[in-house]
């Protein structure tokens, strides 16, 4: 297999346990090169453990992980940039010194020039000589992001990169990630922001209780669930909808309501019934959103779905 055809990450039947708890259970996954791969799942489902195994920080109990075709166990990970969920920066160091230190550890390219470039791109140039402890949370997070990408890694792993960021900085980081992907970098990131995952990811992987429950493009995942979702706007809100036959679940977003209908329910007949009980200003038959799919799997009634 030639170098470019090799997937960025191959996880084969990996299991990782902590004592009696199985964090990751017989997981297999392939991340193609150049893809943006979103890891989603409830807290404690095994996302971070999986990311740490890719990073070679944790070793699987069974199975294997290959990055760019190599088994990393015991070796360095200079081709990977990793940003953990909880940020880790030496608070007493100055921004530039810290970035040059982290970049230097990877040792790819001209770190000094890269640091200057990234500080400019993320509008942190004037903070270059400040100590980390003087930065705001958002700035620290941007510094952590730069530390992850400054050595020009071929694979970037970001654990919850948008947590705690305001909308402006979220946009800055989002654009930076997309820029990296456009340059050919493979990006894996975990997130609880489903809309972000929908917008940014070529592939989405969901892990629940240590097992893979979703893996594919957004479209293919939605196809699995069919067009069982109706998005509508009503004059009287969601309350009158809940008792109608054929409606399994109602999600009220305020201005918009989303209905999940039974498999044998005809949307045309349902529209007729809806018109009888409320004023309909908008009616759209659609596929379920990622958020809806997530809730179906990981919500209170998730067991039935995931076991099916």
């Amino acid at each position: 297999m030639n170098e470019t055809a090799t997937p960025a990450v191959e996880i084969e039947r990996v299991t990782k346990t902590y004592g009696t708890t199985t964090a990751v259970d017989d997981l297999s996954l392939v991340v193609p090169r150049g893809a943006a791969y979103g890891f989603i799942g409830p807290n404690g489902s095994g996302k971070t453990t999986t990311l740490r195994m890719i990073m070679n920080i944790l070793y699987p109990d069974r199975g294997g992980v290959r990055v760019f075709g190599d088994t990393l166990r015991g070796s360095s990970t200079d081709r990977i940039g990793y940003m953990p969920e909880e940020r880790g920066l030496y608070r007493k160091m100055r921004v530039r010194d810290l970035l040059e230190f982290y970049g230097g550890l990877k040792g790819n390219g001209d770190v000094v020039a890269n640091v200057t470039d990234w500080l400019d791109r993320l509008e942190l140039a004037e903070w270059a000589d400040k100590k980390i402890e003087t930065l705001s949370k958002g700035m620290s997070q941007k510094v952590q992001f730069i530390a992850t990408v400054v050595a020009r890694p071929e694979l970037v792993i970001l654990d919850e990169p948008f947590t705690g960021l305001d909308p402006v900085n979220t946009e800055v980081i989002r654009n930076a990630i997309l820029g990296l992907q456009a340059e050919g970098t493979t990006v894996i990131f975990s997130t609880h922001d489903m809309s972000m995952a929908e917008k940014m990811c070529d592939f989405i992987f969901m892990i629940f209780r240590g097992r893979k429950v979703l893996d594919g493009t957004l479209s293919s995942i939605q196809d699995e669930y069919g067009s069982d979702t109706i998005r509508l706007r009503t004059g009287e809100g969601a309350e009158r909808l809940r008792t109608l036959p054929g409606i399994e679940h109602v999600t009220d977003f305020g201005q918009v309501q989303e209905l999940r209908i039974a498999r044998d329910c005809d949307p045309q007949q349902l529209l007729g019934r809806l018109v009888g009980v409320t004023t309909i200003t908008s009616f759209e038959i659609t596929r379920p959103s990622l958020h809806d799919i997530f809730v179906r799997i990981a919500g209170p009634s998730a067991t039935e779905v995931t076991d099916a």
Partner: protein
Amino acid sequence: MPKLLRVALREYKATVKTKGFLLALVLAPILMGGGAIGMAIFESRVDTTDKVLAVIDRSGRVADAIVAAADARNASMLYDDEGRQVAGTYTIDVRTPAAARDEQLLRLSNAVRGGELHAVVEIGPGVLHPRDVGSAGTIAYYAENPAVDDLRSWVARPVNDELRRLRLLEAGVDPADVPDAFDWITPAGLRLVSRDPETGAIGGAERSTELEAILLPIIPVMVLLMMIMMGASPHLQAVTEEKQQRIAEVMLGSIEPFPFMLGKLVGGVGIALTASAVYLVGGILTVEYMGWGAFIPYSLLPWFLVYMVAAVAMFGALGAALGSACNDATEAQNMTLPSILPVMIPIFVLIPVVTEPSSALATGLSLVPLFTPLLMLLRQGTPEGVAAWQPWVGLAGILVTAVIFVWIGGRIFRVGLLSQGTPPKLGTILRWAVRG
């Protein structure tokens, strides 16, 4: 630059560029020197307080001699040649022994407590021939702090001189015929005689002093202790902090745990070398300037440096391993004692080892790798020295132990850094060490 050295350089800079390091560099010798100066000041400060000693002479034989000795002392020893008072007067208050002994002692003790008397000395009735009379042949000294009391030491001589004089008289010898009968000659401590390798002449033995025998060997040990404290001890807190602030996880994304820890240890060694260079160069220049250059044990310097590097690596690995098992500063605080205990144990035995450097205890302890750096250095610094093989065996032990500590520490470090929640028990830490 290799990753390990990058980590080492960061550790080094992070410490030596701080105000705390510079402050410690300056303050440590000042504090230690200050202690010595304090001792010197206290030593030169003489007690010129007048003291009254009550004497109950149940033998009826020595009270007058004590009074005479006190008078002689007061006449000749209160002032030095320049007229400065260097001692207080001793006044002897001879009391008639009362039938109610306990009441008399209580009364006099209260007088001591009230400040009217300094102490009470009670001469037993059988002191002239004490061997077969039990408690009747003893002398008791009652005071607020009798264990450390110059007057107690002083009074012993006139009492015993008089008793000896009386014993000679009983034996029919006139003490005046042998005026030097009680002269006491203390042997002068001299180093062994040796032949000069260049001239072939047999050299005169040099006088050995307490300074040379005790103080000089201890100085490099204390400097080494400081270096261990500066280069190795901070690892425990620093690693815990890195773990708590998730820096460790970021680092592990770039460097494997073992070189990461090794880099920290190398940084620690660099810090110790820097500080020791400052102290050694500064110390040597100062001592040479003061004209005491002959006392500098230059032959110990290589051993000092080797012991220091090995000790910082050994204790640094221990600190880093324990630090990685802690979740926060409080847990790290609790681990501080076990981490520095191997460093402190040699300090507890410094005096017995320096006074008997060739004893089995001193030799045995100095060959225990954890204690070797401090105790072998101490023994090597004594005038007696050690057998040539001992430092080499000790060094081999240290190096093997340092490698084992670094290896095991690295395994604990790797697992411990990512562990969260309840602090691990000793069994868990040992399991990490075995399984990695």
